[in-house]
């Protein structure tokens, strides 16, 4: 924000910028100056707020509310209590020991028959099948016979399927009949409730999300590191060259920045694939044998190369804008005082670029852990990120609650880094080309 020059008060007060206390100054029309000043400030404040209001309302409706909606979805658990209303009510009083009483079985038989008739039983069956395989057919099969069942319902249901004799299934229904659930978050970190209600790790063959989170973080860290390594010399060159040549080279940085993400991803596919440009070149010059073509894409390497390329400008630009402010005379002074080039760089120049390094690194890291398109297209199996699993649960497994839970965890991580960034640099200082 601007500074110094003049206090930006409204016209009437500006004639006396000091506003000295004690002397009861008044404006031309006799109002005490202080009061007039306050009124003017209030008016400016309201004016400023009114200008921002439409956008704030828009972002609130089109962005913030959707985000909160997603957050609420990650714990929302309406299925069992809505579609098995009688059963959930009866189970409230059940202590979870042994099997529930006849009343619970009777309520369940009624709920099943009603749910089949209203054609919404599938929703609760789908929900419970996420927790335990086989629940879907258990519900649908029993429901088809529930209409003809007679008391005692306990015997009738167990006759329909002996799984109803399993206390674990009843505990599961009781647990998931509460309107909020932690199971999506547990699933997002490869945990689950044991039948007795403790939180335990999932069997190893079902664990996937934690390792994907870890992979996302370390690969993003690697990409950030690579970007820093490549960006530092380039930013230095740009900052020290005379403006005319610097501007020309700057275009080489800005062009990729402005080029479509899909275009850049496509080019890497063309270059890196086994029948691609780079392999062809290496085979052509005889470095590689025809059969020894290297698999450089559809794996971690592909993701890292393509994403480093895509995110590099986000590192160069903040570094450049910091380096631009460092006067060359500092280095000259250090050199003339007898420091070697390396010492001068390490002790004088490098420390002054730290803000740029911080800004660029956090920015690249935040952008990287949230990337979806590039890992999905060039990552193969081993180069995918956790974001690819959000998409998978949204579109393929249809477990939207789990997608929301994974998304919320990722969101929290991003927001933490965003806050650090904001504290260090300030969001409005983001440099855009």
């Amino acid at each position: 924000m601007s500074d110094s020059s003049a206090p930006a008060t409204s016209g009437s007060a500006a004639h006396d910028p000091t506003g000295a206390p004690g002397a009861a100054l008044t404006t031309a029309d006799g109002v005490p100056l202080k009061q007039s000043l306050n009124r003017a400030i209030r008016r400016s404040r309201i004016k400023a707020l009114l200008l921002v209001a439409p956008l704030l309302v828009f972002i609130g409706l089109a962005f913030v509310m959707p985000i909160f909606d997603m957050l609420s979805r990650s714990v929302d658990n309406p299925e069992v209590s809505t579609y098995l209303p009688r059963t959930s009510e009866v189970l409230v009083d059940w202590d979870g020991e042994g099997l529930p009483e006849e009343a619970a079985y009777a309520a369940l038989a009624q709920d099943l028959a009603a749910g089949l008739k209203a054609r919404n039983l599938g929703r609760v069956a789908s929900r419970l099948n996420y927790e335990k395989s086989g629940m879907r057919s258990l519900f649908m099969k029993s429901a088809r016979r529930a209409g003809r069942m007679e008391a005692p319902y306990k015997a009738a249901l167990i006759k329909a399927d002996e799984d109803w004799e399993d206390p674990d299934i009843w505990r599961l229904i009781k647990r998931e009949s509460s309107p909020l659930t932690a199971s999506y978050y547990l699933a997002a970190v490869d945990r689950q409730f044991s039948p007795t209600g403790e939180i335990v790790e999932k069997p190893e063959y079902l664990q996937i999300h934690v390792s994907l989170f870890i992979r996302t973080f370390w690969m993003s860290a690697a990409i950030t590191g690579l970007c820093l390594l490549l960006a530092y010399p380039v930013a230095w060159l740009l900052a020290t060259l005379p403006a005319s040549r610097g501007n020309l080279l700057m275009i080489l940085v800005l062009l990729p920045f402005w080029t479509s993400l899909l275009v850049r991803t496509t080019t890497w596919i063309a270059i890196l694939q086994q029948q691609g440009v780079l392999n062809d070149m290496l085979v052509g010059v005889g470095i590689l044998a025809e059969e020894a073509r290297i698999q450089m894409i559809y794996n971690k390497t592909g993701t890292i190369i393509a994403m480093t390329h895509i995110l590099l400008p986000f590192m160069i630009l903040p570094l450049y804008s910091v380096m631009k402010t460092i006067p060359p005379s500092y280095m000259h002074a250090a050199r003339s005082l007898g420091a070697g080039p390396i010492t001068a760089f390490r002790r004088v120049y490098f420390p002054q670029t730290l803000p740029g390094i911080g800004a660029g690194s956090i920015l690249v890291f935040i952008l990287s852990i949230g990337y979806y398109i590039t890992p999905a297209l060039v990552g193969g199996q081993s180069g995918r990120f956790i974001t690819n699993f959000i998409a998978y649960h949204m579109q393929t497994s249809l477990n939207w609650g789990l997608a929301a839970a994974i998304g919320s965890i990722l969101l929290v991580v991003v927001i933490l880094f965003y806050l650090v960034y904001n504290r260090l640099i300030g969001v409005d200082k983001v440099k855009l080309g």
Partner: protein
Amino acid sequence: MSVINQFTASFTTSRPGMPLRSLLAVAVAAAGMSAGAAQAETLNIVSWGGAYTDSQNKAYHEPWEEKSGDTVVNIDKSSNALSGLRAQVQAGNVTWDLVDMLPSDALIACSEGLIEPLDPDTLFAAAPDGTPASEDFIENSLSECFVPQIVYSNIVAFNTEMFPEDKQPDSIDDVFNLEEFPGKRALQKKPINNMEWALVADGVAPEDVYEMLDSEEGIERAFAKLDTIKDSVIWWEEGAQPPQLLADKEVAFASAYNGRIFDAEVNEKQPFSIVWDAQVFELDGWVVPTGKLDKVKDYLMFATDTQRLADQAKYISYGPARTSSAALVSTHADTGIDMKPHMPTYGPNFETAIPKDDEFWADNLDELSQRFNAWLAR
């Protein structure tokens, strides 16, 4: 059915108040038609795209457009049909009128109340000899909310040029045999079919596959077998990929829907051949989103009759789901080749076929997908 139509149609339907002029145009057009003809409508029909949608266009949509004046808009979203239906029903804004879906998804959609129950004998035409629809469709193929069109098959195909002429693969074991049949394999990135094939290749009889898969031992056995080829597999996600990968010789084998391979063989003259051993066959058909039955009733009656189902088999090698249609299957519309040997249900192709167990997968897909993904990531 042109894409331009599709564009303008969707544009006008997405606008709430039709401009007066286009209302007038419609009124004039309607008046010009024979008295009693219903007002022309736009039907948003969701299907699989590619060669399959082409065959539906020729066999169902184009004749229907001519007959009724309706416009059919094709939407290639069947691979995400269940999530699309859930979202639209939840929004109370269903834009799809008819959806082409697998029976396993239809079971779930039906139990969640997303689609309409269909009474076969009032909604579908009887066979030409008078057999009611409920008896004319293949046994057990109709379900509460689902009417099948075709029997299709998941098979593994190969590029014949990748293997010596005297040593072409012919069984599912060969797909898992990297030594004698080297090269990459393209398999669909989901547990369905792959687990079945792994067990058969490991010596389980086709009829015992699902019993085996229902046990921990069977699952481990299937994954262990898949482990043996894991490093040579390229996993595909879109139905258009396998023929492409085979044609580019990126892979030696690719799992695919048999119709896509047939299409590439016949229409693009690709040197492909199908390993029919252990084909996993299933049905595919129509479901009607809740609230849309009145709108698509007439179309549905037309598109599921004996002649239309037989017509579709002129364009793609999927078996018609009506017994009365099977007898009418003849030759390919463009090339005149005999369609019968290309059908999944053709005797020699069908010997070791596995009927996909929808109920097994409805129960176990959630967990086995998770396990499959964890296995992939390892």
